[in-house]
């Protein structure tokens, strides 16, 4: 069902990229994970110059702490563009600071995951993410096509 769906992971920490890829594989989500190491690269993929095909992932997993363009900057930009404003964005963070959570939702995030230290907990978090957001997204998509 989700086999052909792409997920965009915007994450600068290579270790976290490894863990996220592993977590998706272990949960048997067949999604292809496209990785952008910073905000600028993500922008190139999602909002490319005219003539280049834009990436349209099922969900974006967005680390809040990115070098230069922060995760919140990326999120604001996505929400301000017609082409990307409906893509579900899940914020990833290391802290569980209230301010991060609040700021994320204020900027239009659809979800918030604190990357747990224990790998098993991370597996669970990714599992619930996948179950909820990938399924929901399946249902949302036809409407999106109609309105677009």
């Amino acid at each position, binding site marked *: 069902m989700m086999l052909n769906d792409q997920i965009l992971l915007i994450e600068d920490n290579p*270790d976290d990229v490894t*863990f996220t890829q592993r977590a998706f594989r272990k949960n048997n989500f067949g999604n292809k994970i496209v990785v952008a190491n910073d905000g600028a690269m993500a922008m190139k993929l999602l909002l490319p110059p005219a003539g280049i095909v834009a990436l349209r992932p099922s969900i974006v997993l967005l680390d809040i*702490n990115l070098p230069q363009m922060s995760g919140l900057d990326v999120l604001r930009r996505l929400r301000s563009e017609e082409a990307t404003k409906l893509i579900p964005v899940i914020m990833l963070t*290391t802290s569980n*600071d209230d301010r991060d959570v609040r700021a994320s939702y204020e900027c239009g995030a659809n979800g918030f995951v604190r*990357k747990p230290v224990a790998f098993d907990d991370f597996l669970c978090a990714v599992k619930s993410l996948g179950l909820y957001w990938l399924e929901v997204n399946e249902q949302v998509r036809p409407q999106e096509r109609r309105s677009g």
Partner: protein
Amino acid sequence: MLINEEYERLFNVSREDIIGMKDHDLFPAEMADEFLANDKVAAKSGGPVQFEEIAPGDDGPHTYLTIKFPLLGSDGEAYAVCGISTDITDRKRAEQEVRLFNVKLEQRVRERTAELEASTKELDAFAYSVSHDLRAPLRSLHGFSQLLLEDYSDLLDETGVSHLRRLQVNATLMAQLLDDLLRLSRTTRVELRRQSIDLTAMAESILHDLAAEEPDRTVKLSVEPELHDVGDLHLVRLAMQNLIANAWKFTGGESVAEITIGSMLRDSQPVFFVRDNGAGFDPRFENKLFEPFQRLHSAADFEGSGIGLAIVQRVVLRHGGAIWAESVPGEGATFFFTLASPVSLSEQRGEDDAK
């Protein structure tokens, strides 16, 4: 001009010499202009008028409080003005000093406030950095241990697997410790929002959660009904959570565990308590009880980071309350706390009356 002896002494002139002289012969032009103008005001007013005048003295300018009144002729017209001056230089100087002192004081308060704000911000940034930057490496430690266990298990013997597991346990422990540290620092930083709190309902819900986690334990629970006070809901819950979880933890070895939550009155103020019949603590170490990372029991007997009671104390102190504990080792412990000092309570009442 007619003058008295004091005037002679002050301005170094004699009565004989001054006859026929005018203010401008005696004083600098600006001062003399002002004296004359004041004289004219007094002459026209028909009665006494008060002025502050500055005149030169041996040790610099002096300030005088001068009352001037017209001397009237038989036709009712003023033919002269009489002035009586009191030297108020010292008073003026004192006033000036007080003003200066106040300005300095305000300046100091502003500086201190700025310093305090800066250090709070610094603490904030520090806590934020701790929660982000110190956790990430722990995640890598734990995660790669997991990958080793999964991908290279055929290369590891039992000891190797055990080593990796211990690495994971410790990474998790340190993450827990970081979380506790952050929680402690947050209790000092967050703004206090006071509201009315139902401590009975709070205690019951905390106990309910604990019982759900360990359904096999039998604990005799008693929560006094109608426990109310005013405080920050979030922080008070954090404090109650720690106190009750402690009671729960330290009665783990009792065949019949008992936890009682209640209140009593002291100086007509409610004192709440959490009592258990668990391991208790040695009263000699009561002062160490509330220090962060102080543990009075070995990790093997009771696990914990040693930060729980430090959090409780911070919460209580931030409310202006007090906390203390009593124990007989092996027979249990009681923790008492108040949420506001009697003084601040009466202040609150005073404010309410004023409204």
